[in-house]
């Protein structure tokens, strides 16, 4: 199996995620885009782990890390949605360009 396939797939997911993060106003959609980026990173981790494990019989550290990223991602979604709820409650909107208190 060519290793380039999963890698390119991951790169595609990542760049699509970036596009989403940069272009969409809806905070929930931005969050989904971030999730895409996280998923692409786990794909990369698993792929390279397989590559390295095949060559030098290293343990499965990459997969453990992917698992951790998964768990942290789940935690992140929880906190992020809580923040979005708060934003909505204070601004009656989920558009991230409404959260501009820090601007000059």
């Amino acid at each position, binding site marked *: 199996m060519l290793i380039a396939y999963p890698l390119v797939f991951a790169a595609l997911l990542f760049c699509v995620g*970036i596009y989403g993060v940069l272009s969409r106003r809806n905070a929930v959609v931005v969050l989904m885009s971030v999730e895409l980026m996280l998923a692409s990173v786990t794909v990369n981790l698993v792929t390279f782990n397989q590559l390295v494990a095949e060559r030098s019989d290293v343990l499965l550290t990459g997969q453990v890390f992917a698992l951790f990223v998964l768990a942290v991602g789940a935690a992140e979604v929880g906190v992020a949605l809580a923040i979005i709820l708060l934003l909505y409650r204070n601004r009656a909107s989920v558009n991230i360009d409404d959260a501009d*208190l820090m*601007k000059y």
Partner: protein
Amino acid sequence: MWFVRNAWLIPALPAVAAGLIFALGRRLPGRGALLGIGVIGLSFVVALGVAVQVFSANVEAVAQVEEAHGEVSAAEGGEEQHAVEDDQAVTESEEEAAIPEGVHSFLYDEGVDLTGTGADWSFQAGIRIDGLAAMMFLLVTFVSLMVQIYSTGYMHGDPRYTYFFGLLSLFTASMLLLVIANNIMLMLVGWELVGICSFLLIGFWWEEKVNSSASIKAFITTKLGDVGLVVGVITLWGMFRTFRIEAILEAVEAGEFSQSLLTFALIALFVGAIGKSAQFPLHTWLPDAMAGPTPVSALIHAATMVTAGVFMIARLYPAFEASPTALAVIAIIGAITLVMAGLLALVQDDVKRVLAYSTVSQLGYMVAALAFSYTAGIFHLFTHGFFKALLFLGSGSLIHAVHSNNMSDMGGLRKAMPTTFATFVVGSAALAALPPLAGFWSKDEVLAGALESGGYTGNLVWILGTLGGFLTAFYMTRVLWLVFGGEYRGHGEPHESPRSMAWPLIALAVPAFFIGFINLPFGFAHPVGFAAWTAFDLAYFEEQGAVFVVWLAALATVLALVAVALGTLLYRKAPAPDDDPMLNMGWATRVLDRKYYLDLLYSDAIVRTVIRTKLANASYWFNDHVLDRVVYLVGVGTARLGRATYEIGDQKGIDGGINGLGLSALWLGAKLRLAQSGNVQLYAGAMFAGITVLAVAFAVS
């Protein structure tokens, strides 16, 4: 050896108590006083245990030496008792040879190495217990215990009662740290802590300007001496690459050093002692330090502050021995101090000031004694601690009763305050060196030691010392009559002090009376006496021993009695200052004066009790103007320098630079904030663009 190994408890306990008192304060039982007293009592018990163990170990070592010595020449022991000086030359070499292998005086020196491995020098902090330290523990903890018990009565009702006890505990702990330290750096820490505590305590009633200026004066004057101390410590480090006392003494014994450098270092150290132990010419702070509460004066004078300098010299005694020049300087300064202060004490009206000058004078004795005899110096330190604490607490009791420091407001207090009277008499007699009280034995040891050594410094010290003894007896007689004789001149009805104040007086009067017996110069006490307990070196002990010169002791005693008689004659009626005992005094004293070739100074000093005449006036003027002026000028100069530094260096240079930086940051911020659109996605886009650029750069390189 449990006590010795755990001797660190002695300073640690009061330190912890001080912390607790400061932290918890009034919520503690007795508003902190009980904790302080209880803890210092514990420390005293530990100190007692340490003393018993150390002293008995030393006595055993001495006995072993005696035994070996007895085999060499059995006959000598008997002769030695009476006239050591005669056969000293003969026996010296034999005795040194007779010290058996492996027998040495007690020393426990343990510490923690604070330097990393691989350093070519080491900094070790720890405890050093020997006879000297054990003696100081006893003295400091006992006096501090008495002072704290006394303070519960004396300070009763003071708004800062709790704070006072916290400070007392801290003061004691600092002094004990100084004593227990096994390296000079740690000793310096204790030394400075003692200084800051005395500053806080002298200015305890800081609401009055006089008190706060007195505390500042005490602090700055001793600090002036501390400069010398620090120079000395640094020089010693430069010479031996160590702060450890044991290592320094070993290096000195090995003899590999520059003699002139050692002398310089030791004299610099002695300058520190001059400041701390109130020697001429830096003694001026001590009488002013009377502004503090009287228990503090007792603590400062007897145990914790002024003894520090003497202790420091004794601690490094083997090093001082190696430099005759330094010892000569010490002897001369001590001799000048003891006479000068004795003269000044004659003309005071404030009872505490009389005692203060007498302390300066006695410190002069100790310092001068150390130039000749280690044992004599620290023995006098030990006995003086007890009777001077007694005298100060007694004077506090008087002040408590009549609400005035001045003897002109007292008089006739014998009937009103019997306990204070009795104990004060004991203290005065001890100070006046009347046999068989404590002061007699120690002072005569000082004089005999000086006489033994001979030379011009030795002769100077014993002659001036004898004269000083006369002065001491005279002014103490004067104080006694003025305070307790005649009619009461003050206001109100004087009454005896409460029991919390009377009992410490009695408890101190007992050692003031008997403590001298621990170092009787006669044979039956010789092997187990004070000299053996505190011997730092058996060879030195064998050589020095306890000395006693009968004719000198007799002379001193007779002189003291004459002084007492004279004082009684002049002050029997307790004249008020306006009365005129001047003619009597002038005539009688002039006769005595000519005998010592000091008639002019002396008579004028006496005359000054009523009319201000020249020399005493001049010496007073010199005291208050020249010496104080020097201190003042140094202070002003420093202040000017500081102001100049402030205005030019700090305000213009540093502050200008800082302000410039701040302003430029403000300006830059004002420009840069325009870039903050508040749009998170723009920021994220910029970030990812940067990441892309980085990835390209990474790939290309």
